[in-house]
């Protein structure tokens, strides 16, 4: 067995000890995971973002316009001290402002208009009623009515809102099912690794 498999197997078992209860072995593995993950992200960010997008073009190719994002990014270090913390508001303002500027048209197009146009389809096709289309139309309208809180949900409005909660429950149920299945498939993968590569109980 190679060292990599041995280390991976022992650490997998260390994490699984949490199923018994919180214990020092799990805490140690968890601390190692947090540290290594932060270190990994740091290195990847340094290589892919700062070196590739900033330092190499700025200092090797002389692209002086990069001084602006460099200065903005540098102001973030102000966050590390209470007295200079307000300096970081400027780069945060750039992110928030440009994010909002992008979000207005993008959200309107992708999250609202496209979703609405996908909802409104032909209910009658070839002389028959498309049940799926009716369900989608009814689901979207009733769920939107449920989320409309400016009017009291009584009478037919309230009944439609209640229908909306049924659609929401179906959505939450399916999402729950898929989440459990994705976690289970990862768990099966880890068990397969432990039983075949690490312990070699199964081939």
């Amino acid at each position, binding site marked *: 067995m190679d060292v990599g498999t041995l280390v991976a197997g022992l650490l997998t078992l260390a994490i699984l000890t949490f*199923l018994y209860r919180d214990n020092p072995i799990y805490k140690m593995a*968890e601390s190692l995971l947090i540290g290594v993950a932060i270190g990994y992200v740091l290195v990847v960010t340094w290589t892919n973002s700062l070196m590739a997008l900033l330092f190499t073009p700025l200092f090797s190719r002389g692209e002086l316009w990069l001084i602006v994002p460099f200065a*903005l990014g540098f102001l973030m270090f102000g966050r590390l001290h209470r007295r200079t913390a307000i300096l970081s508001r400027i780069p945060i303002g750039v992110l928030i402002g440009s994010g*909002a500027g992008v979000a207005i048209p993008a959200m309107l197009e992708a999250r609202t208009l496209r979703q609405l146009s996908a909802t409104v389809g032909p209910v009658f096709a070839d002389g028959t009623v498309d049940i799926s289309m009716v369900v989608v139309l009814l689901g979207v309208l009733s769920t939107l009515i449920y989320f409309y809180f400016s009017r009291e949900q009584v009478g037919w409005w309230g009944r439609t809102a209640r229908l*909306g909660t049924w*659609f929401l429950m179906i*959505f939450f149920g399916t999402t729950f099912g898929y989440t459990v299945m994705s976690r*289970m498939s990862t768990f099966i993968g880890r068990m397969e690794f432990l039983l075949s590569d690490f312990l070699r109980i199964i081939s």
Partner: protein
Amino acid sequence: MRRRIPQLVCGLFGLVTFLCYFSSHPIARKIYLTVTLDYWQIIFAFTLIVGALSFVRVNLRAVERGEDRPYKIVSLIGVVLMPILALIWGIRGGSPFMWVFENIQVPMQATVFSLLAFFVASASYRGFRARSLQAAILLGAALLILISRSSIGDLIWDRIPEAAEWVRSNPAMSARRAILIGIGLGSLTTSVRVLVGIERTWLGGEK
């Protein structure tokens, strides 16, 4: 002044990116892409470094105070180890940096992810009771997906996967679509409030 300048910067960048979105002029496209791709990535990268430095500082203080000292030291070793390995041997495939990633980080991350299966299962065992019609619908939809995605589904009735797919792409999708429309409208109004300076929570509490 401490709030006004960041607000002005926020409004200016917001207005420029908003106007550039609708323009097909090469300069407008260039500004839009430069801000949304380069500026964002560079500022995010610095933000991440600040976060990592803050993490190191907090952990060093905890080590000094003797709070969970062994765990904090292990975390700090992890943070420092990865950049050192990358600096000495690089980050190509087969390097010690990638060895740590593949044999320490990936297996542990996957195991932590898989642990949630047990907690979700135990929580659902305690919480899933068909006390009302809504709860029964939730339970039914979840069971349908769970059965359809396991091999037993086909054995019970060969059309269960088909039924689950219909539920997923019609009633479940319609609720998801309504939620997305709500998120879109909410994001839109929040963005407008940020740009015109009504929404100022991002500035923090200090004057």
